[in-house]
């Protein structure tokens, strides 16, 4: 059975930005997501150009919610650790909830996120983390996207302020990476 993929909202936004929610569905054959991520996704889907995010329900199904007091407390503790000064108080709740549910239920899967704080805690919890670009590169290796198209996705995401793999600013560097 393919590995379970749990995304956060950053990854969903990125796939919607390149208009490839269909590709995300093929990558996350076995998918799940948490309720706070679904809530963030619903809000993001109302923004211009991100309507296709609503499709995430078809990919990831009924969201998982914290079921116990300890999962809620763990979520709050992780959110405190993930936060940075100046951030909105709701920021990182989706990531914190995902980490709490994955660790407390010993879910064997990968957490797909571009939140740079997440790997610190995920590492401690032995949860594997991949980024949008890890998924896109895997899609290329799986023959779903050719290199030129992937390069164009990188440009689109960079122009939209969505970041990218460090150091990949030239096509030659990208070709070596991909």
């Amino acid at each position, binding site marked *: 059975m393919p590995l379970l993929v749990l995304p956060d909202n950053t990854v969903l936004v990125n796939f919607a930005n390149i208009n490839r929610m269909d590709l995300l569905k093929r990558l996350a054959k076995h998918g799940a997501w948490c309720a*706070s991520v679904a809530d963030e996704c619903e809000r993001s889907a109302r923004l211009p150009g991100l309507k296709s995010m609503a499709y995430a329900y078809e990919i990831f199904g009924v969201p998982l919610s914290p079921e116990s007091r300890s999962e809620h*407390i763990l979520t709050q503790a992780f959110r*405190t*650790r*993930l*936060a940075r*000064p100046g951030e909105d108080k709701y920021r990182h*709740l989706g990531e914190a909830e995902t980490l709490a549910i994955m660790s407390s239920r010993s879910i064997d899967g990968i957490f797909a996120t571009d939140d740079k704080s997440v790997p610190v805690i995920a590492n401690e919890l032995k949860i594997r983390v991949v980024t949008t670009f890890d998924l896109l590169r*895997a899609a290329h290796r799986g023959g779903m996207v050719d290199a030129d198209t992937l390069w164009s996705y990188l440009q689109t995401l960079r122009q939209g302020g969505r970041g990218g793999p460090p150091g990949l600013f030239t096509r030659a560097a990208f070709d070596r990476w991909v």
Partner: protein
Amino acid sequence: MTPDAFSRALSGQRGFSAIELAKIADELGADVHYLITGEPDPLRLRMVARHNYDLVTGRRVVRGADQDRAILDDVALAYRQAAESSLPASTIPATALDACTALGERFVRPFINRLEDNLNLDVVRLPDLSTSYSFMLSGRGVILVPADGNWFYQNWCLAHELGHLVYGHTDPETSDGERDQHEHVADAFAADLLLPGDAIRSQPWDRMTAEDLADRVWDWGISTKALATRLRALHISLPRLVDEWRAQPTQRLLRKYWNHAEPGDPIDQRTAEAATRQFPLALRQAHTTLIAEGRLPKGTLAWMLGVSETMLEVDEPTRPEPMSADALASALGL
């Protein structure tokens, strides 16, 4: 959240997400921790603010409260993140005299260091704060002051907030009258600490020259205006010299009459120190340790230091090798 979803969550047919709980807590003005556990959050901060007296309304107010809120939340986050490193509890003195003894001789110039070293009391100094604040968290006292370059005001703030901590004042549930009384008590504490009655009474006010006055004002770390107020409070008739200088900038008195043997420009140096962003060493060390242990990201430490997170190089655990693209493709069944 729809009424139907809320109703199903209350009846246990579905759970609350973390975001839903956070929004309900906001709506109710409650702590999320309280909603989850039914117990008060042990890491909830109860800040006390230094209020200014509004001559028009006759009430004590914090004019920059809204702007300060975001800064206070950020400082609170830094302390909440460091909570697991259990910073040693502060030694809160019982009286101004005890505080004076604990802080040691000539404490005013190195006031912040003495608070940290002698009492385990933290001081955070930040630009854009409109006034001073203090709070206790797990036995650790913290004072926040504006980094405005005005060391006279800053010293008074430090002493005033220490007074709040000594008397265990907390703002949120206090009435106007009670708050007024707290502010009087904290100001009286500050006056006793910085300008002790005996020391002020024993000064040869009649024979004092402008040079002598400048020397005292420098050592006491207060403004000429604060000195005049203190003299009146002690029922000492205002000496001509103090009366002449109380409405003038203290720095003018110092620039004209203070004779010092210190190298460089100590007035400018003191101003620059009072304008510097500063976080206590104990808090920074707690974050540095937690980052090295892989318990915290470095964003908050970078913010405390006023540097970019990406440029900040501190000890961090080595991360495991990421999954290779082929391994990931295979795990995903591609």
